[in-house]
C-alpha cells in the first residue's frame, strides 16, 4: 500500500508542477495510458487473491479517480491561464479614434431642409407641391400676372433676359415663382391648394441680394377662401415653422400687381440680443407678401373671378432659413464652403416631420 501512496504523491506532484497542457498530457499518459504506471498496477489485479483484490481494487480505482480528477482540475487551471495570457496579449488601445462614419459626416443644405419643413407643414393642410421651369416667357412671368407692359411695377424686378428670338419673343429667368400659379390654374381644376418652392433670379447682388435665390409661393383657389383664411394659414404656418407657441403678426396693406387686396406681413420679434427671437419682443420684421388673387389673373387663367376666388403668398426660402437658423449672409448659401455646410447643414437622418418635430 505504501507503494501506492508513494506513486500517488509522485503523480499528484507532477500534475501540480505541469505548466502546459502538453506536459499535463504526458503525465496523464505516463499514469493512465496503456502502459502507464497506474494501468500497469491495474493489470496485476487479475492475479491477486480475492482478499487482496478486495483491498487493492478499491485502492487502485480510488487512485485512478483521484489522478483523473487532479488532471482535469489542473487542465482547467492551465486552460484558464492560457486564455488569460492570450487575452492579455490581445489587448488594444480602445481610445484610438475612429474614422468618421459617412452618415455622420454628410450634410443636407439648409435650403433643402427648409423646403422639407415647408412640405411637411403644408402637406398636412392639404397642399401639393407644384413646380415650373426657370426659363419663362414674359407672358407667364409678367403679363398674365397683371403686370402691364412697360409698367413701373416691372422695374421692381431686375430681370435677367435671354436674347430676342427671330419671332420677337424674349424669354427670361423667372423673377418669382408666381408663373407657376398661372401654369397650375391653367391645368388644374379648382379647388387648388399648392405651394411652389423654387429657384428665382434677379439681376442684383449685395449682402442681402444674390442673382439667384429661392422663393416659396402658396396658392389657394376655390369658391370661398378669403383674407381671413389667408391670415389663419400664415399664422399657423409661422407658429409651426418657427416652433413657437404663439406669434403676433401684423398685416399691412401693400401692392403687388397680381393680388388685390395686397398685403405685407410682419412678425413679432425681439432683436435686442445677438440672435433674433420670434414670438416675443416689440420689433416687427417683414417676412412675406400676400393677397387675394387679382381678378385679372384669375380671368387670364380662364376662370371666372366672380365664381372663383382665392389667395396667394410668397416668401424667401433662404430668408426663412436665415431667420430660423441664424445665418448672417445670404451669399454664403451659394458658395459651397464645406465649413459652412457642416455648420449650418443637417444630418441625413434629420427628417423634418410634424410628428417628430421639424428640427431636433
Amino acid at each position, binding site marked *: 500500500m505504501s507503494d501506492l501512496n508513494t506513486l500517488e504523491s509522485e503523480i499528484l506532484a507532477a500534475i501540480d508542477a505541469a505548466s502546459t497542457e502538453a506536459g499535463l498530457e504526458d503525465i496523464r499518459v505516463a499514469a493512465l495510458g496503456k502502459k502507464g504506471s497506474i494501468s500497469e498496477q491495474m493489470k496485476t489485479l487479475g492475479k491477486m487473491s480475492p482478499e487482496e483484490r478486495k483491498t487493492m481494487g478499491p485502492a487502485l480505482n480510488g487512485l485512478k479517480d483521484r489522478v483523473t480528477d487532479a488532471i482535469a482540475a489542473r487542465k482547467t487551471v492551465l486552460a484558464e491561464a492560457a486564455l488569460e495570457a492570450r487575452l492579455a496579449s490581445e489587448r488594444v488601445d480602445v481610445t484610438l479614434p475612429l*474614422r468618421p462614419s*459617412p452618415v455622420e459626416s454628410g450634410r443636407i443644405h439648409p435650403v433643402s431642409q427648409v423646403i422639407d419643413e415647408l412640405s411637411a407643414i403644408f402637406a398636412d393642410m392639404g397642399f401639393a407641391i407644384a*413646380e415650373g421651369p426657370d*426659363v419663362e416667357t414674359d407672358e407667364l412671368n409678367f403679363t398674365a400676372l397683371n403686370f402691364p407692359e*412697360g409698367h413701373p411695377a416691372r422695374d421692381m424686378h431686375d430681370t435677367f433676359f435671354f436674347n430676342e428670338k427671330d419671332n420677337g419673343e424674349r424669354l427670361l429667368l423667372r423673377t418669382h415663382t408666381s408663373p407657376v400659379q398661372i401654369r397650375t390654374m391653367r391645368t388644374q381644376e379648382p379647388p387648388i391648394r399648392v405651394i411652389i418652392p423654387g429657384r428665382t433670379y434677379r439681376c442684383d447682388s449685395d449682402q442681402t441680394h444674390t442673382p439667384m435665390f429661392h422663393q416659396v409661393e402658396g396658392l389657394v383657389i376655390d369658391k370661398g377662401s378669403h383674407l381671413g*383664411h389667408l391670415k389663419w394659414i400664415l399664422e399657423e404656418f409661422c407658429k409651426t415653422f418657427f416652433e413657437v407657441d404663439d406669434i403676433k403678426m401684423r*398685416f399691412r396693406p401693400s401692392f403687388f400687381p397680381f393680388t*388685390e387686396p395686397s398685403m405685407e406681413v410682419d412678425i413679432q420679434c425681439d432683436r435686442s440680443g445677438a440672435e433674433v427671437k420670434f414670438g416675443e419682443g416689440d420689433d416687427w420684421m417683414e417676412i412675406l407678401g400676400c393677397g387675394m388673387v387679382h381678378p385679372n389673373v384669375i380671368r387670364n387663367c380662364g376662370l371666372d373671378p366672380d365664381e372663383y376666388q382665392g389667395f396667394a403668398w410668397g416668401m424667401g426660402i433662404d430668408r426663412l432659413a436665415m431667420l430660423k437658423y441664424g445665418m448672417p449672409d445670404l451669399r454664403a448659401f451659394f458658395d*459651397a464652403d464645406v465649413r459652412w455646410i457642416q455648420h449650418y447643414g443637417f*444630418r441625413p437622418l434629420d427628417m423634418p416631420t410634424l410628428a417628430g418635430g421639424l428640427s431636433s
Partner: protein
Amino acid sequence: MKFTLSWLKEHLDTNAGLDEIVERLTMIGLEVEEVTNPADRLKPFTIAKVLEATQHPNADRLRVLKVDAGDGGEPLQIVCGAPNARAGLVGVLARPGDYVPGIDVTLSVGKIRDVESFGMMCSERELELSDEHTGIIDLPEDAPVGVSYAQYAGLDDPVIEIGLTPNRPDCTGVYGIARDLAAAGLGTLKERAHDQIRGDFPCPTDVKLDFGDTKPLCKAFGLRMVKGLKNGPSPKWMQERLIAIGLRPINTLVDITNYMTFDQGRPLHVFDAAKVTGDLAVRRGVKGESIEGLNGKTYEVDDTVCVIADDNGLESLGGILGGEVSGCTDDTTDVLIESALWDEDGIAATGRKLGVNTDARYRFERGVDPDYMLPGLEMATKLVMDLCGGEPSEVVVAGKVPDDTHIVDFPYSEVKRLTGLDVSHAEINVTLKALGFWISGTGDTVKVAAPSWRPDIEGKADLAEEVVRIVGLDKVPSTPLPRIGSVAAKVLTPGQIRRNRARRALAARGLNEAVTWSFVTKAEAEAFGGGAPELALANPISPELSDMRPSLLPGLLTAAQRNADRGYPDVALFEVGQVFADDTPEGQSMVAAGVRRGTAVLDGAGRHWSGASPAVGVFDAKADATAVLAAIGAPVDKLQVYTDAPDYFHPGRSGALKLGPKNTLAVFGEIHPRMLGLLDIEGPLVGFEIYLDNLPQPKAKATRSKGALDVSDLMPVRRDFAFVVDKSTPAETLLKAARGAEKALIADVTLFDVYEGKGIAEDQKSLAIDVTLQPTQKTLTDEEIDAVAKKIIAAVEKATGGTLRG
C-alpha cells in the same frame, strides 16, 4: 417719398402725435421706412448770451467769455477764438459732455493756454447746419436764452420717409398723403386753394402737339408766361422743406417746380422765356438730335422719346428732364411755366432707355392726376407771383385733358366675399367718399367712380381693398381653412420623392450638399455639353455667370477647388438641381450630381492610424451613382454598364449606367485631365451625374404586399472558377455569361479576383468567380454539379473567347 411733419400738418388738421401718424401711415399701406429728426443730434445745444468778452492773457487771438446759459447758474467761463465773439452776442452753447457733430468731439472741461474753458460757442459748421465757419452763430438779440436751439430755429421737425408702392401716384405729394390720413380718421384735410388767375395778355409762345399719326406721347400741355418778375433765392420756409427732404435749393422759379412736385405730386417745368425762340413743338425726337439736360448730361434721342423743341432745337425731354439751354437762372425775368400730361408708358420707356431717373419721371410714369393739370398751373403761377412778382399771361392749352372716369358696379358683398370682414353699407360709403370716390345708386350694388388721382382703381376688388385698408386689416377675423379629409394625403410627386431620396442617400454617403448658381461661364457651358446661344443671358450680372448650366459638374468642380484653396483639399460635394438642354420647359431636367476630391472616399479622407485613404477613383463615383439609383428605386439589377460616358470624363476611367443602349440613368468617372486645365482646377477628382427624370415612372401597384418569401431549406453549393481572357474583355460580359448558364440553379455569381502578371500572357488577365448554386427540390449530386460547371465553362468561353485557367 419724404416729407416733414410740419409740411404734412399744413395739409392735415390733426391732434395726432408723430408716433400715431407713423403707425397709421404704415397700417393704411403707406409704409414708413424711416423717421429722422435733425433736432435729435442738436438736442443738447441751447441759446446762451455772452455777458463779457475779455482778451485772453496768453493768446492774441483768443478771448475769455462769461456766458449766461439761462439756467439760473453762475456765468460760464469759455475760451473762444471766433472773431465775432463779443459781449452781448446771443449764440448757441455746447457744454462739457455734449457731442458736437461738426467736429466729431465730445466736449470736456479744457484748459486753453492756462485758462479753463467750460464749453464752447458753436459755429453753423460745428452743428452741421451749413458750411459757415467764419464766426460763431449770431442770433437776434431777443432770442430766448436757455431755450433749445433746435426748437427755436424750427429744426425740430421730423422727416418721415415712406416706401411708396407703384400703384399710388396720388401719394407722391404731401397733399395726397394728408388726404389718405384724413380718410383714415386721423384729422381733417385742409382744402387746397383753387385760385383762378386771369391772364393780362395772351401767352406769346404757342404750343403744338405734333405726333402725326403716331401714338401721342403727350396728352395735354398747358403753358403760361409770367413776365417782369424777379428771380433769386426762394424764401427760407421753402428752402428748409426742400433741404429737409434732400433737395438742393436753386432759385425761386426752380424751387417752386420742385415744391409743387413734392407738395402736390404735380411736376412742372419752367423755361426762361428769353432763351426760347419761336413756339414750342411737342413731338417725337429725331435720330441724331441730342439735348443737354439740367443735370449736366447729354442725351441722344430717337423717335421713341418725347421732346419739346423750339426753333433752335430741343429744349426738354418731355416729362422727364428740362434742358440746360432754357433753364431759369437768377437773371430770368420772364418765365414760361409748363404743366403737361404725358403718356405713362412713353415716360417709362424713355426713362429706361436713357437711364434717367428724375422726380418728374417717377410721377408721370405712375400717373399724375389729369384733372389737376390746370389747377396745378394756377397754383404755380400764384406762387411765382407771390414770391417773384410779375405779370401773368393767359394760359394756352394744347391737346385735351382726357376724361378717364371709370365707373365700377360695386356689390357691397364684395368686401365680405374677398376679405371675410363685415362692414356696413354705411361705413363702406363713408370710407370711399372720404377717399374721394363718387357713389351713386341704392340697394346692394351701387355705381362707384374713382377720383381722377386714383388711376389704379380698376374694379370691385380694388374697392374692397380701399375699404379694408382704411377700416383696418387687423379687423379681418382669422378663419381656419377647412381641412380636406381628416388625415393628410400623400402630396409629393414621384420626381419630388426621388430628389429627396437622392439627397438623403448622398448625404448618408458622406457628401455635403451644395447649392451652386444655375449659371456658369460660357467656356464651362461649352465644355460640359452646353453653350447654346438661346441659353446665354442677354444681361448677365458678370461673365462668370453668363450661361445656363448644362451640367451640375462645373459648379461642383470649381466649388471643390475653392475649398481646396481654403485648405480643405479632400471634399465630397453634391447637388440636386436643374440643368438646361434648351430654353423650353421640357429642356429643363433634374439631376443629382456629386464630386469627390483628393482622398475623400466613402470611409473618410486623409491619413489615419488604420491606414491612409487612397486617392479617389472611378469606382468611388460608380459606387455613389449606383447607391443613389438603388435608393430612388431604379431597377438596379437590370442596369447595364457602358463605357461611352461624356467626353468630360477620362475616356478609360468612366462609364454610363443604362437601361438599354438609349436610356442613360447615370454617368460616372474620373474627370478628364483636359477639363481640369480648362477649369483651372487640380485633381484627383471624380464625379457622377444621375439623370433623375430618365428613370421609368413607378408602376401603380394593386396592393402593398411584398409577396411570400421563397427560400429553400437545402444547403447552397459554391464552386470557384478562374478564366483567362483578353485584357479588353469586360468583366461584366463574363459575369453575365456565367449567370445565364443555368438560371434555375445559379443563385449568385461574384467576381473575387482579377489578376494580371506572372503566369498570364501579357495581353490577358485572369478573372476568378465564385458561383453559388441553390438547389430547390433535392440535394445536388456530384454529377449534377459537374454538369452545371461544364455549362458555366462553356458559356463563359463562348461569350469571352477565354479559357478555364488550368
